[in-house]
């Protein structure tokens, strides 16, 4: 089971044992991680699941797709180099240990 760690803006960390195939967003929402809203249930419609992927995982996670790219540009939170919508990151064993930070405000 891949582990994902969510880092809040106050620096607090929460690590969750996720299921392969689940998204970083749905794992967060189902377990009540604050800072990730995921209102649209993973349909790339709300941009409320923005995360900053830890540098170390930027490569295996990869860049956003076209539509996601537009959502990130126009979402509530500031965009950075490793910004992704967490609903578009499906968890695999390769991503075990993934660390993502959540923005100040979204949704």
């Amino acid at each position: 089971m891949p582990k994902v760690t969510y880092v809040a803006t106050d620096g607090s960390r929460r690590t969750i044992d996720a299921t392969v195939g689940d998204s970083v967003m749905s794992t967060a929402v189902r377990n009540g991680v604050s800072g990730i809203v995921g209102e649209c249930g993973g349909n790339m419609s709300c941009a409320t699941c923005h995360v900053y992927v830890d540098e170390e995982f930027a490569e295996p996670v990869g860049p956003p797709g076209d539509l996601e790219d537009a959502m990130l540009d126009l979402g509530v939170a500031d965009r950075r180099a490793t910004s992704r919508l967490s609903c578009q990151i499906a968890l695999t064993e390769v991503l075990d240990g993934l660390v993502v930070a959540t923005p100040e405000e979204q949704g």
Partner: protein
Amino acid sequence: MSGALIVGAGQAGVQLAVSMRDNGYDGSITLIGAEARPPYQRPPLSKAYLAGSADDASLYLRTEAFYSERRIAVWPAERVTRFHLTSSDAGVVLTDHGCTMVFDRLALTVGARPRRLDVPGTDLAGVCYLRTADDADRLRTHLAAARDVVVVGGGFIGLEVASVARSQGRHVTVVEVADRLLGRAVAPVVSEFYRQAHTRRGTAIRVGAGVAGIEGTTGRVTGVLLDDGTRIPADVVLVGVGVVPRTELAEQLGLDCAGGIVVDEQARTSDPAVVAAGDCTVAPNPMTGAGLVRLESMPNAISQARVAAATIAGAPPPVPEVPWFWSNQHDLRLQIAGIADGYDHLEVHGEPDEERFAVRYYRQGRLLAVNAVNSARDYLVARKELAANRLGGERLLGA
């Protein structure tokens, strides 16, 4: 000790419970739901879940551990049959299994049920409605063995199911009584786009066609008879002709209902001690503050539930949201923001023929809403504009 009772364990009910805790409410919270599954999201039922690309567990809104950590008691498979109010905001509730619970705060998030088609033959096997995960399971099983599928109702549910069935190689006919698809939600230009887009993908669209009856042999559906005498063969009929809000409990409590439980901008019913949220309510138009609208959508359920939770907890209300909605049909992603009611002018950006465009709705030069098909950027730009309009605009002047 008594506490808060939330009747209805869908998206609105769960959000209400979670947001009450977020707002510091410390009493007990009980969430009663009639369905046997843990609380789940409905939008995938006509999309990924129906198509088989999302499983049961992916529907669940929160883990069991989450509910117990946040001290939210979830009672599934219990239907509230009676309330007994002891004062304006306290009372006892009785469920169909004889459970009772005392409460001092009450929230209704009871949702809606599918409107039934009132023609002969709807009791034949193979005639389906779609509201619950059980409905979706049944429909999926029927679709797997089907050749001909008729969808009655050219709204979002009907067109999403038609998309899934067509993608699975079924012969699909959509029958809509009005003269265009999605008539309640979008402008004629968008309706026409969807008619053509579904037709291009091999689905037969019949608008202006009423259903006279559903026909069958040995208890199974074999076809749909239209008003004009046409017979369309069918092994499966999906009826998606809208929903009826569940107002029975509210009426029993003497709350005002008008095509839904009437609530104000703080999600309070006509008894200010009782709140309601989601598909069961009608509320002032969130863009203009005027009239009463029923917004059947998950974003509205979440947004209203947050407001209701703040009301119960005595916390400041959240910043109101611009209503939004989405629909996935084949590879067409529709995103809607705002409410287009009363528009006097339309602008079409992009090319409907290229399946990538946006329609902006205006009244007196002011943006009311956007419908964007495969153009997220147009959607997001308009959504930001609508949020800014709202905060700086007539709402505040009227407040």
